[in-house]
C-alpha cells in the first residue's frame, strides 16, 4: 500500500503523538470509568447489591425513571413540532427561533434550576398564589420535572431540525398533492424518514434527563425517599462517607452512559445517512 510520503508523518512522530493522545484519553476518560466500578465493587458484589436494593436507593431509581418518563416524551413532542415548523416552512425570525431553542445549552445547570425557584418558590413570583392553593412545585416532583425539561429541551429538536432541512419538502408536498392530510403525511412520510435521527435525539435526551444533577439539585430539596433522584442520591451517600453506596448507585448511571454511547455509536455506524449530517453537541 503506497503511503503518501508528503502528508504522512515519520513513524516515530506518529507513535509519539498516538501515545500522548491515548495517554491523555486514558487518564481523563478510561480511568474515571474504571474507578467507578472499582469503588462500587470494593467490598464485593454483595455490598454493591445491598446498597442498591435499599429503600432509599430504590425510591431514587423510581423517581429518576418517572422524571425521565415525563420529560423525554414532552421534549420529543416539542422536538417534532419545532423541527417540522422550522424545516417545512419559511418565515421571518427562523434563525432567531433556532438560536432560542439552543439557549438552555448555554445556561449553567444551577441557573436552570434557579429560574424555577424564582418563579414558583416561597419567595417567587407565583409562590404566594401556589401556597394559597396548597400546591407545591419547588422541593417537590413538579419542580424536578420542570428543571429536567428545561435542561433537556434542545436535544431532540437540534437533532431533527438539520435532518429535516436536509431532506427538504418534496416528499411531503407530493403526499399532500396526492390527497394525504397533514397528519397522515407526517406519520407516513416524515416520521419514517427521520426515525433514526429521532432515536438518536431521544437517547441523548434520556441520558441527560436521568443524569442531570445541578438543575435538579437546586429544586429538589433533597428529601430522601421523596425528592431524591439517582444523581442526588449519589451525592447524599457520598457526603455521608458511604462510598460503596455512592459508587454503587453511580455504577448504574455509568452503565446507562456506556449503553447510551454504544447505542449512539451503533446508530452512527449503521444509519449514518439517516441522522443529521451536521451533528454536533
Amino acid at each position, binding site marked *: 500500500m503506497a503511503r503518501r510520503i508528503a502528508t504522512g508523518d515519520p513513524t516515530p512522530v506518529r507513535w509519539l503523538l498516538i501515545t500522548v*493522545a491515548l495517554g491523555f484519553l486514558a487518564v481523563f476518560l478510561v480511568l474515571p470509568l474504571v474507578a467507578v466500578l472499582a469503588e462500587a465493587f470494593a467490598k464485593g458484589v454483595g455490598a454493591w447489591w445491598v446498597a442498591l436494593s435499599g429503600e432509599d436507593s430504590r425510591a431514587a431509581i423510581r423517581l429518576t425513571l418517572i422524571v425521565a418518563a415525563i420529560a423525554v416524551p414532552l421534549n420529543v413532542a416539542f422536538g417534532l413540532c419545532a423541527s417540522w415548523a422550522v424545516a417545512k*416552512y419559511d418565515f421571518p425570525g427562523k434563525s432567531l427561533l433556532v438560536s432560542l431553542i439552543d439557549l438552555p445549552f448555554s445556561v449553567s445547570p444551577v441557573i436552570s434550576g434557579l429560574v424555577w425557584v424564582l418563579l414558583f418558590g416561597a419567595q417567587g413570583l407565583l409562590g404566594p398564589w401556589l401556597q394559597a392553593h396548597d400546591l407545591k412545585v419547588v422541593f417537590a416532583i413538579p419542580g424536578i420535572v420542570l428543571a429536567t425539561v428545561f435542561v433537556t429541551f434542545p436535544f431532540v429538536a437540534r437533532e431533527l431540525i438539520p435532518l429535516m432541512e436536509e431532506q427538504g419538502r418534496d416528499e411531503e408536498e407530493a403526499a399532500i398533492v396526492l390527497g394525504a392530510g397533514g397528519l397522515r403525511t407526517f406519520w407516513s412520510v416524515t416520521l419514517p424518514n427521520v426515525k433514526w435521527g429521532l432515536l438518536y435525539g431521544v437517547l441523548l435526551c434520556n441520558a441527560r434527563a436521568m443524569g442531570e444533577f445541578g438543575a435538579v439539585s437546586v429544586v429538589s430539596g433533597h428529601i430522601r425517599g421523596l425528592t431524591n433522584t439517582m444523581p442526588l442520591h449519589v451525592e447524599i451517600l*457520598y457526603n455521608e462517607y458511604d462510598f460503596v453506596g455512592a459508587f454503587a448507585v453511580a455504577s448504574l448511571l455509568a452503565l446507562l452512559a456506556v449503553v447510551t454511547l454504544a447505542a449512539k455509536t451503533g446508530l452512527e455506524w449503521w444509519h449514518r445517512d439517516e441522522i443529521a449530517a451536521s451533528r454536533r453537541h
Partner: protein
Amino acid sequence: MTAAARAGFRRVIPGFGPTLGLTLAYLSLVVLIPLAALLMKAAGMTPSQWLATLSDERMLAALRLSFGGALAAATINGVFGLLVAWVLVRYPFPGRKVVDAMVDLPFALPTAVAGIALTALWAPNGWIGKLLPFKVAFTPLGVMIAMIFIGLPFVVRSIEPVLEDVDQELEEAAASLGASRWQSFRMIVLPAIAPALLTGFSLAFARAVGEYGSVIFIAGNLPGVSEIAPLLIVTRLEQYDMVGATAIATIMLLVSFALLLLVNGVQKWHRERMGG
C-alpha cells in the same frame, strides 16, 4: 426558487399555524418565561444592592475561579483536543473507532458520577493523587481537572469533521515545494481548522464556566479559594438570599452571552475575510 414560489409552498404543506404556535408556546413556557423571571428579579434590584453584590470579595473570587479555571481548561483542551482529533483523523491504528466513540463519554456520564470518580482518582490517597508530589483535588487545580474532563469532547468533535475535509493535496504541494511537515501544518492545516478550533474552545469554555456537578466534589469548596460561582449561587439560595443568588446568576448569564456573541462575530468576520 423565487420568493413567491417559496411562499406558495407554505400553502401546500398544511399545519404551519399549529406547529409554529405550539413550538412558540412551549418554548416560552419552558425556557423564555423562566429566564425572564430571573432578569426581572435582577432588574428589580436597587443600585445599592448591586453595589453590595459587586463589591463582595467572596463572589468576585468565585467568578474569577469559574471564568479563569474555564479559560485554562479550555486552553488545555484546545491543545489536547486538537492532538486527539489529529490522531483520530490522520493515523489509522487498531481500536481507533472505539477510542473515537469514547470521546463522547463526558457528554453521556452524569456529572455527579464524573465528580466522585475524578475525586477518587485525584485525591491525595487516590490512584493518581498518590503519585503526585502536590495536591490536586480540593484545590483550584482540581476544579480545572473536572473542567478539562467536561470540555474535551466539544473541541474534538468540532475539529474532526473539518480536519477530515482538509485537502491533503495542498499539503503534498507544499511538501513538493520544499515545506517541512511542521510548516505545512502551521500554514495549511492550522488556518483551515482555526474557526473549528475556536468554536470548540468557546463551547468547552462556556460549558466549564457553568459546570457544577463534576466540579463540586473535587473542588473542596473553600470560600475565596476553590469555590466556583454556580456553587455560590446554591449557597446563597440555601441562605434564602434570593437577591444574592440572582445577581451572580445574572452576571454569569450576561458574560456568557457576551462571549458567545463575540465568538460568533469573530467567526463571521473570519468567513467574510476568507471569502465565504
